[in-house]
């Protein structure tokens, strides 16, 4: 647990970057600090490992006052990930990852083998280990940055916009992997971002800061989206917050209707009572929609090229947002529901999802 106890930071030039911050980052959870540029996110984060010293107030790490520890010892207990990874260009990837264990005097061989395991964990193939940072893409470097922060198995991780310097597709992957990793590791994480979508996606708890270093609201993502405390937070979380809040509302077990299907590779069926026919593979995983209005040569089979693949899928038990999106993105207007294993369960319509939305409690909680 990290606790900010009326922490203030005033820079020598008089700028108050953080103003009387009270915040608890619970153990084993991701606490996201979010807010517009210059609102004091980085300053707050860096006061935890004392890269910046607070002007007043105390930051507690569990029940220890961070100010009472030697800075380098404090920092070796805290994983630290920054925007451009900040890898050491003169060291190989594996040695980059093993930096803190080396500092702690861990046996080199053991430190390297732990580092290799971590590389695998963050999704980097083993042959990258002997490369140098300049030989990696930005996204790969960022993974190494995360692995390096984890190397000494610190209970606490500080992350300052770790995924903001990579393109949106890679960012999404990194976020998903990060969440999976955290599910295994259960670190106490403080995560800084200026991207509210990232905050809502990753945070167990989101703290919105406003310029001047004031804490505007701390809440779970769902609560933040549905009940922003004031106009600033409402504006910051965005216009489509109502729709995004659906991402946190589970749909329960969707009552689906069974959908006629055709197997890929089978002969093209002729005549159908519907314009669209769902194609599935051998494991009954949906592959795409077949447009029955299109004329096809006799004797043709169902091939990939004929399928409309625009529709998203919703897993049984997924969010209302995913369910609605599956309906809206499906060319047939029917959203495809799959089970945990990815096999077809059935379909559902947007009207049915809307009914579920309307039937929700007026003030959802998670």
């Amino acid at each position, binding site marked *: 647990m990290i606790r900010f106890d009326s922490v203030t930071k005033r820079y020598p030039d008089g700028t108050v970057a953080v103003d009387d911050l009270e915040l608890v980052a619970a153990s084993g959870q991701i606490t996201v600090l979010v807010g517009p540029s210059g609102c004091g996110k980085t300053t707050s984060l860096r006061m935890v*490992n004392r*890269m910046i010293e607070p002007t007043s107030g105390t930051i507690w790490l569990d029940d220890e006052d961070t100010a009472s520890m030697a*800075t*380098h*010892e*404090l*920092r*070796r*207990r805290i994983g*630290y990930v*920054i*925007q*451009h*990874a*900040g*890898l*050491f*260009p*003169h*060291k*190989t990837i594996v040695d980059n990852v093993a*930096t*803190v264990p080396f*500092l702690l005097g861990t046996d080199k061989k053991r430190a390297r083998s732990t580092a290799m395991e971590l590389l695998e964990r963050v*999704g980097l*193939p083993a*042959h990258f280990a*002997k*490369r*140098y*940072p*300049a*030989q990696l*893409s930005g*996204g*790969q470097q960022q993974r190494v*940055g995360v692995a*390096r*922060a984890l190397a000494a198995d610190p209970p606490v991780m500080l992350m300052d916009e770790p995924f903001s310097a990579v393109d949106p*597709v890679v960012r*999404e*992957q990194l976020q*998903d992997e990060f*969440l999976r990793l955290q599910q295994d590791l259960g670190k106490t994480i403080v995560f800084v971002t200026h991207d509210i979508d990232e905050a809502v*996606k990753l945070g167990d708890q989101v703290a919105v800061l406003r310029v001047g270093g004031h804490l505007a609201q701390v809440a779970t993502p769902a609560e933040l989206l549905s009940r922003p405390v004031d106009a600033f937070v409402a504006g910051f979380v965005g216009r489509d917050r109502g729709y995004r809040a659906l*991402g946190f509302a589970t749909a329960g077990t969707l009552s689906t209707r069974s959908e006629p299907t055709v197997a890929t590779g089978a002969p093209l069926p002729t005549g159908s009572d519907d314009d669209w026919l769902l194609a599935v593979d051998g494991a009954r995983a949906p592959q795409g929609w077949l447009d029955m209005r299109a004329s096809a040569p006799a004797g043709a089979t169902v091939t990939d090229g004929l399928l409309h693949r625009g529709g*998203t*899928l*919703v*897993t049984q038990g*997924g*969010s209302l*947002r*995913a*369910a609605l*999106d*599956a309906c809206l993105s499906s060319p047939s207007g029917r959203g495809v529901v*799959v089970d945990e294993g*990815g096999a077809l369960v059935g379909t559902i319509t947007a009207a049915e999802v809307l009914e579920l939305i309307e039937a929700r409690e007026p003030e959802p909680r998670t």
Partner: protein
Amino acid sequence: MATGGGDVIGDVVTWLTDPSHWTDTRFDTGIITQLLAHVRFCAMALLIALAIALPLGLFIGHTDRGRWLVAAANALRALPTVGVLVLLTVIISPQFQGRTDTGFLIPTVIVLVLLAVPPILANTFAGVQNVDPGVRDAASGMGMTGSQVLFRVELPISLPLIFSGVRSAALQLIATATVASYLPLGGLGRFIYDGLAQQDYPQMIGGGVLVAALALLTDLVLATVQRYVVSRGITGRYANERTAVPDSRLAVLPEAEVARG
């Protein structure tokens, strides 16, 4: 003169290849002895300059305190070498009555050190300062102490610039050490000054050629050292790796989309 070009080159070659010019005789000091003397001044000056400029440059770069020293050292370059040499000799050599070599050696080495310090200092400082702030931040954020940041991160990353400073200092020393012969000291400058005085142009030019050859050789040696000392991650001379398989950039995971929708 206009037609003498070919002859001059021939004469210089003759002078350089004459074995009697290489070894000492009763009347003349040979090339080998003068070469060693030349190398000796330069090596002494370079080592002293390194001992001063390297720690100073690292300190100033790391702490960002005392920048003015770098500028001040640079201003030293403007001093006229021969003038300083004469001045120092006038002051220093009388202190060494009877041991005239030392009396001349000290001013020579001082002058050379003054020349070698600025490029090493400036490049070391610039090397440390140019380290990516993110890298420095990560290093101390991970719990490196100040000196660990300096020696494990800043120094290795600065090495290419430090080496280029040392190499340019070495070149300048080798060229300038000829002034030692302005005093009654040896060195390759001897041939240049004597050749000039005696209007023995093959000897004069031969001396110049020897200086140039020494400079090239030294640079080659330093470049080789640099190649082995600087990390391949910085030089970009990566080890060959069989990358027949294109990087698996981790395929997009559709179930992640579904789950988090």
